[in-house]
């Protein structure tokens, strides 16, 4: 047999500015990476310019800021787009970033027809897990549909949508849930495309063929092989039966992958390397369902952002798999295995049953609240099992003793520190760009954009015009916000409880904690009331959801309002609600700006006596700084014992009450 071609190898990266990210991309390509994967910063992902007040402290933090065509041109300077395969992790503003990419190609003298790459462009998993949504479901689906119909006609090799199951697993989904809800999302998208009437029958079949997936692969890699086989069979059947696609090539399940990062640990972080390798096997071993593209997290995933060397180590894993091992030399090694087939059937049947249940709700949009709750319930079960030791995580809840690590000593020298000057540089560049553009053209292009948004005409031509005219990301976003309105996704925590099985040591500890919470209520005069807040643009909700659910199960009254709140909103809620403690959860690196702002705001409101605790990705040096600023406690991923965290919170609230 002829050796199979390796998958496209990528590294998910981008930070600080377009200039710095461009340098990084060229370095990565020189190391044998075969495609680009662009990480955008949160303001860009949520449609704000770098100088918007809400962007303060977030610019260039977890990705590259792209405010206008000047940024996009700089990002790809010296990288010929005609020969590049670029994946862009962009969703609510996908149509806009695609328009900027097309306009940049045109300025490079490249015919957009030949462009290759992917826009993630899956809004449903943003509502369910990832958090960078802007508009309500209906207009969001319409924007997705517009990019599909546009690319099918004008950029035939582009993957306009990567339906994502990846982020569902990161939010706790089981393999069955991952497959089922991703298929439901694909159905919502294709149904919208079909109903738009913009495509004929043959073109629609082409559009179906352009849908690709972005999946996850966890440590139970045999089950993952089966999951992917089930996924691919269901996709084949669904596209044939629901959409009448007759050409089997257009029904093929094509996917890219990022392996599981949720299980990567802060404790003994070197153990993450074997985890990543094993997870990569799940998506490469079986030829029939092998990934088309891969990106791997780094060993220091739970510590903070990876440095170039960390990313290189992960790229080398891919290269060793592809070029040193023999996995690319065989036909599918699982074909004919009864064991694999049985497991595949089991997942397939269960996933389809769940798809049908969602369809009974009226589809994925109507079922959003239900699905979110299912995900939180699964994640709660995962956390519970880790707490009881039913799920073993080496170095965390078992085999914890360790020799001193030469790789990691606990400070922040083992992660990338984004230069604080990058934000200033970016804003200066943005203001200079705005000053030199032709304002009349900008105004006209934005008027045309609004017109298209209102009339229902395809959004892409108007967006490409905006790109050339020098419109900014914030202006594009604001125009559509005015037409479409904004959305808040469900939190999913209401119906979820920890103690599905009321036994074992955790249940006993929880029971004892409840008794203590009741006693504290007597001291306080009323039940212990806490606010769990998620300030800033950060969408990482897992931690906050778990803390909220466990606090409730410990007998506390918990105010939780979901993600993306301004410091002002959190301060107002703390005041109006009369809480005894404020808990903040921040994972995307902007804690040093947001936390002091909230502490100051509380003091201004005369609420300086309310203790504040913070959890998330907080390097130890930053934690020290926060404690000095007045934060009572800081928690990080290594603090996995929920009852211990909770009783600690009770301690904090009680101590303050006694001194009041």
């Amino acid at each position, binding site marked *: 047999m002829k050796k199979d071609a390796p998958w496209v190898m990528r590294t998910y990266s981008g930070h600080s500015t377009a200039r710095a990210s461009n340098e990084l991309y060229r370095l990565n390509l020189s190391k044998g990476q075969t495609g680009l994967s662009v990480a955008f910063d949160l303001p860009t992902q949520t449609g704000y310019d770098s100088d918007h007040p809400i962007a303060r402290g977030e610019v260039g933090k977890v990705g590259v800021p792209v405010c206008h065509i000047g940024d996009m041109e700089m990002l790809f300077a010296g990288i010929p787009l005609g020969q590049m395969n670029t994946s862009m992790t962009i969703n609510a503003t996908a149509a806009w970033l695609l328009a900027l990419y097309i306009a940049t190609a045109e300025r490079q003298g490249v015919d957009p027809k030949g462009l290759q790459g992917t826009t993630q462009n899956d809004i449903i998993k943003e509502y369910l897990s990832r958090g960078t949504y802007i508009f309500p479901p209906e207009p969001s689906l319409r924007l997705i549909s517009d990019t599909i119909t546009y690319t099918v006609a004008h950029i035939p090799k582009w993957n306009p949508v990567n339906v994502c199951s990846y982020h569902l697993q990161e939010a706790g989904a089981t393999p069955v849930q991952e497959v089922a809800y991703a298929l439901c999302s694909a159905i919502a998208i294709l149904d919208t495309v079909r109903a738009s009437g913009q495509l004929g029958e043959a073109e629609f079949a082409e559009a179906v063929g352009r849908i690709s997936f972005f999946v996850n692969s966890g440590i139970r890699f045999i089950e993952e092989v089966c999951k992917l086989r089930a996924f691919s069979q269901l996709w084949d059947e669904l596209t044939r039966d629901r959409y009448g696609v007759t050409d089997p090539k257009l029904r093929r399940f094509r996917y890219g992958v990022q392996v599981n990062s949720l299980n990567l640990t802060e404790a003994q972080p070197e153990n993450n390397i074997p985890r990543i390798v094993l997870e990569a096997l799940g998506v490469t071993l079986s030829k029939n369902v092998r990934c088309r593209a891969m990106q791997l997290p780094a060993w220091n995933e739970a510590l903070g952002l990876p440095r170039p060397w960390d990313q290189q180590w992960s790229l080398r894993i891919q290269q060793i798999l592809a070029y040193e091992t023999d996995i690319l030399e065989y036909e599918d090694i699982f074909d004919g295995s009864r064991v694999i087939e049985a497991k595949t059937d089991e997942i397939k049947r269960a996933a389809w049953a769940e798809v049908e249940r969602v369809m009974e709700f009226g589809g994925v949009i109507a079922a959003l609240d239900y699905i979110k709750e299912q995900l939180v319930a699964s994640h709660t079960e995962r956390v519970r099992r880790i707490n009881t030791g039913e799920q073993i995580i080496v170095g965390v809840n078992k085999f914890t003793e360790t020799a001193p690590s030469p790789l990691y000593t606990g400070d922040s020298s083992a992660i990338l520190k984004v230069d604080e000057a990058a934000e200033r540089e970016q804003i200066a560049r943005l203001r200079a760009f705005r000053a030199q553009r032709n304002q009349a053209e900008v105004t006209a292009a934005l008027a045309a954009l609004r017109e298209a948004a209102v009339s229902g005409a395809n959004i892409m031509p108007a967006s490409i015009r905006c790109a050339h005219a020098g419109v900014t990301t914030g202006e594009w976003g604001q125009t559509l916000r005015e037409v479409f309105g904004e959305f808040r996704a469900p939190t999913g925590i209401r119906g979820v*409880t920890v103690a599905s099985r009321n036994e074992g040591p955790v249940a006993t500890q929880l029971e004892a904690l409840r008794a203590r*919470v009741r006693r504290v209520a007597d001291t306080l005069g009323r039940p212990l009331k806490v606010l769990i807040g998620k300030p800033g643009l950060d969408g990482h909700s897992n931690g906050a959801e778990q803390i909220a659910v466990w606090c409730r199960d410990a007998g506390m009254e*918990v105010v939780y309002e979901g993600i993306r709140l301004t410091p002002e909103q959190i301060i107002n809620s703390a005041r109006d609600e*009369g809480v005894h403690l404020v808990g903040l959860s921040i994972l995307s690196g902007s804690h040093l700006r947001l936390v002091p702002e909230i502490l100051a705001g509380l003091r201004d409101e005369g609420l300086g006596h309310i203790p504040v605790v913070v959890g998330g990705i907080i390097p130890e040096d930053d934690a020290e700084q926060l404690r000095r600023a007045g934060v009572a406690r800081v928690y990080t991923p290594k603090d996995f014992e929920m009852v211990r965290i909770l009783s600690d919170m009770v301690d904090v609230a009680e101590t303050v009450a006694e001194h009041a």
Partner: protein
Amino acid sequence: MTATTRRRPLEISALLRFERQAIAAAVNLLEDRRPERQEQARALLDELAVLPVPAHVVGITGPPGVGKSSLISRLIARAAQAGKRVGVVAVDPSSKVSGGALLGDRGRMHVPPHAPVFVRSFAARDRLGGLSREAFSAVFLLRHLCDVILIETVGVGQSETDIAHIADTVVLVVQPFSGDLLQFIKAGVMEVPDILAVNKADDTTLARKAVAEVTAALSLERRSWARPVLAVSATTDLHIDALDAAIAAHYHHLRTAHVLDTRRAEQMVEWVVSEVMYELGRVGLAALGGSTGIHTLLERQPATWGALRRLAALVQRVEYRVTGEL
């Protein structure tokens, strides 16, 4: 505690200026069960009682997930726009097992940070499914400080009757999935509401059907206030102006028909009745040793009907007396 962070004493004038810090502190006081705080709380409410009651108290009730919070968010926006002082009291259920509660309603409400809007969430606590006593007393406080109070109930069981004890106008929100509504009508829940809102009417066909159903069910009614049935959508803002107008019209009706004061007076009586029944029930149950006590008593003999009756009669040995004056 240092001097800089010491909480200021409660001043009526600060409350009347709608200083939210003071309002929050006052509600904290109302919630506080310690005897000396209860004393202060009563004193505060008594002091306020002589002041006018400018607020229109609006109850928003309906099954879980129907869109109560989302609708309140739309109503807040309109009231704030009109320069009104708004108080929102949102009640969520408490867990029977843990006693804890997730208070998530305000997450669905957009609260303009600089307008006079005060939003407070309450757990239903031992008042399963209804409005807690704390929520009630908060409304008593806010009535003097606000132009409009919006109360969101937990939407099951007791809350329908509880809300009738405090609200001038009750809006029942339902989903446009047929069946739901007729069930409500049959179950007698329909006696309570003054306005019916079929939310999620962005799904037009279902909504139209639902409105037709309810309108038909109400068509035989002969009341001085013809209860309006409105199809609305909190998501798309559809007909929220009409809902807002209907709420205002009902208030106008109450005042012009001179029934507002009688309605409020009747509510007080009913509230006291339900409090007495609840309180005595609670004391009686405690006298029997709660569920566990009853369980033990019944273990000693077969749980026949007669035994159950005798058991309930045991409570009568607990003596009640009305002492003192109001």
